[in-house]
């Protein structure tokens, strides 16, 4: 059982002239979690001088990256000189923006032609030339569509308003295309009538400047479009060439500039006097000496470094330290909440019990093998989820081992297992209950250790051991009742006495709130029955799928394909459930039933200055 990495608080004071060097060194060491200085009698430091130039270059480089659609994920950290970067960026910028502008023009032209052709297509159906829609002070014109059902009504209404109109309609299934020209003095009334008929107007402004037969115009436009295409292809090739030519360089420069910007901004978390700066940071205790030495060397001995006491209530950042093999399981601790500085890190415990529970529930050699391969493939495909998939691979192995124990391969029973799940349900239930008792009480013991340290022995005894006494009392009462069959017989007294002791301890330890909590303690232990329940569901679905397949198979050759389909779909479905259910229920047992006994969480993450952020699913 380990606690998070022990931290020391370090104060660094020095003249502002050495600040740049100190920042650079801190960034290089990647161990210092800088504590932001809040403005008090000491002001905040101003950023490093280089920041302005760095930020302006960074903006330019990022816009180039996005214009060329280059991803900088794979880029490595490299050092450049700012002046060089500046010199190299401007010609690249000229090239890229030139190409992009030209391409944009071509694309716009192309889009316009497409739009014009679409409109002309409709006008061709209506047999109206585009020039008819030019603005006029005597005639208003409309093009668009209405529902066929509304056309006759529309005509009648128009006729009532004026006789100076021309309506052309072409029916297309349920919608009618419509062109309407009318006397402009009654434009308002016509607009109203059209709205009543749910008229949808078509925007013809793109073709107003054209004149002639729609079909002839379309042909001309097509010719124009054909000329545009190769030009566009050429620009695109050039654009791709640029992306290839400058991609790596730009991505590396971006990375360099972002780290420079990070360094430049760092002093904003520092405190300052007129001539000096100071910064507090958390450093892993094991690194303090080397950090001190390195910083002094970098600043030419002109700085003062002192270690400060950690306060009891301080929000010390949390760095988990687990053996490399178990690192992946930190995923679960992160998902819940990081431990507080003085709490236990539950990662190691979960690394043991999560796969155990998962295997106990899934427990099938065939399913385990498939999920193992599946998660292996996923891990290669989605590197960001590496931790999670590692956990599930370990859990799959556990499922295979339990599969051997149960003698199950895809729900079949090729050999006789030690426990046969479809029959020994009582055994499974008992094992689940025992698992619950062990884990819940283990949680209580851990809680006891922590409480003792922070609130003294008596409080810890009452608040945590009280729960254990309560369990013993319940057990004794249960056994005695089996003998006497009457809760109020004299023989039951030891049970009642124990219960009294438990209640007294809990009242002392937790106050009156222990009463409702009493129920939740037992429900937490019973909750472990899910270990059996989820497992049984998985076996019975598998058995059912196999039975159905056998049944169909023996029905005759005609049914064989169906049997195969049933087999594949059934088992796929069950495997999907077999991944989802056991993993979620296993996590839940840890988070809800186990953690509540000793773990609060809410720790702040340790973010060392200068370290690159790891990609994670979270």
């Amino acid at each position, binding site marked *: 059982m380990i606690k998070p990495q022990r931290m020391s608080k370090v104060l660094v004071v020095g003249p502002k002239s050495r600040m740049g060097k100190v920042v650079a060194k801190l960034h290089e060491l990647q161990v210092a979690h800088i504590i932001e200085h809040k403005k008090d009698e000491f002001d905040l430091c101003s950023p490093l001088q280089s920041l302005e130039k760095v930020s302006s270059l960074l903006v330019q480089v990022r816009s180039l990256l996005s214009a060329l659609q280059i991803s900088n994920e794979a880029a490595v950290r490299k050092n450049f000189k700012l002046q060089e970067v500046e010199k190299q960026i401007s010609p690249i910028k000229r090239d890229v923006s030139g190409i992009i502008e030209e391409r944009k023009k071509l694309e716009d032209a192309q889009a316009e032609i497409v739009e014009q052709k679409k409109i002309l297509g409709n006008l061709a159906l209506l047999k109206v030339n585009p020039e008819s829609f030019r603005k006029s002070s005597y005639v208003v014109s409309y093009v668009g569509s209405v529902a066929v059902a509304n056309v006759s009504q529309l005509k009648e209404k128009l006729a009532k308003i004026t006789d100076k109109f021309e309506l052309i309609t072409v029916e297309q299934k349920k919608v009618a295309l419509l062109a309407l020209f009318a006397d402009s003095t009654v434009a308002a009334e016509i607009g109203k009538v059209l709205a009543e008929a749910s008229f949808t107007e078509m925007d013809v402004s793109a073709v107003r400047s054209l004149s002639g037969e729609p079909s002839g115009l379309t042909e001309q436009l097509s010719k124009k479009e054909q000329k545009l295409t190769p030009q566009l292809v050429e620009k695109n090739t050039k654009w791709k060439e640029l992306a290839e030519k400058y991609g790596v360089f730009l991505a590396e420069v971006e990375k360099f500039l972002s780290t420079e910007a990070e360094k430049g901004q760092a002093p904003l978390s520092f405190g300052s006097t007129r001539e000096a700066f100071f910064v507090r940071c958390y450093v892993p205790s094991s690194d303090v000496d080397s950090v001190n030495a390195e910083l002094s060397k970098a600043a030419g001995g002109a700085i003062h470094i002192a270690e400060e006491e950690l306060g009891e209530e301080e929000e010390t950042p949390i760095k988990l330290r687990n053996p490399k093999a178990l690192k992946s399981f930190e995923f679960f601790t992160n*998902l819940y909440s990081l431990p507080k500085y003085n709490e236990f890190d539950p990662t190691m415990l979960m690394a043991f019990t999560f796969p155990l529970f998962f295997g106990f529930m899934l427990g099938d050699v065939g399913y385990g093998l498939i999920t193992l391969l599946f998660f292996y493939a996923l891990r290669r495909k989605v590197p960001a989820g590496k931790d999670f998939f590692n956990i599930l691979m370990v859990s799959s192995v556990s499922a295979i081992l339990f599969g051997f124990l149960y003698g199950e391969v895809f729900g079949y029973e090729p050999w006789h297992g030690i426990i046969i799940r479809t029959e020994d*349900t*009582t055994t499974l*239930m008992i094992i689940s209950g025992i698992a619950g008792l062990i884990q819940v009480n283990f949680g209580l013991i851990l809680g006891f250790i922590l409480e003792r340290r922070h609130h003294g022995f008596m409080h810890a005894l009452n608040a945590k051991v009280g729960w254990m006494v309560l369990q013993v009392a319940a057990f004794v009462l249960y056994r005695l009742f089996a003998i006497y069959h009457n809760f109020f017989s004299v023989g039951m007294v030891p049970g009642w006495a124990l219960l009294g002791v438990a209640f007294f301890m809990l009242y002392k330890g937790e106050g009156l709130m222990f009463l409702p909590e009493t129920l939740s303690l037992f*429900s937490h232990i*019973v*909750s472990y*029955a*899910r270990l059996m*329940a989820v497992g049984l569901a998985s076996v019975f679905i598998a058995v059912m799928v196999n039975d159905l397949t056998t049944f169909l198979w023996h029905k005759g050759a005609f049914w064989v394909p169906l049997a195969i389909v049933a087999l594949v779909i059934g088992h796929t479905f069950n495997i999907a459930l077999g991944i*989802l*259910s056991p993993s*979620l*229920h296993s*996590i*839940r047992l840890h*988070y*809800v039933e186990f953690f509540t006994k000793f773990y609060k969480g809410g720790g702040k993450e340790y973010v060392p200055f200068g370290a690159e952020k790891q990609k994670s*699913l*979270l």
Partner: protein
Amino acid sequence: MAVEVGSGLLGVGAGLAIGLGAIGTGLAQQQIIAAVFGAIVEDPKQFGRGLFFIVLPETLVIFGMVIAFMLMGRM
């Protein structure tokens, strides 16, 4: 096959324990799932956490199952 009325009722009780527990779980999950999907739309990263909340009320049906088992043991 003759079944005694007593054990028949125990069977019905077992069925009710699981069935009613499942209804309770369903009612709870209905609202949780709606809320979780809302959260996922806002921030897809909440998917894992949301999935975890969805299974929380499944305890109810498991309690029902435990009761059912106890009843079956008496049949």
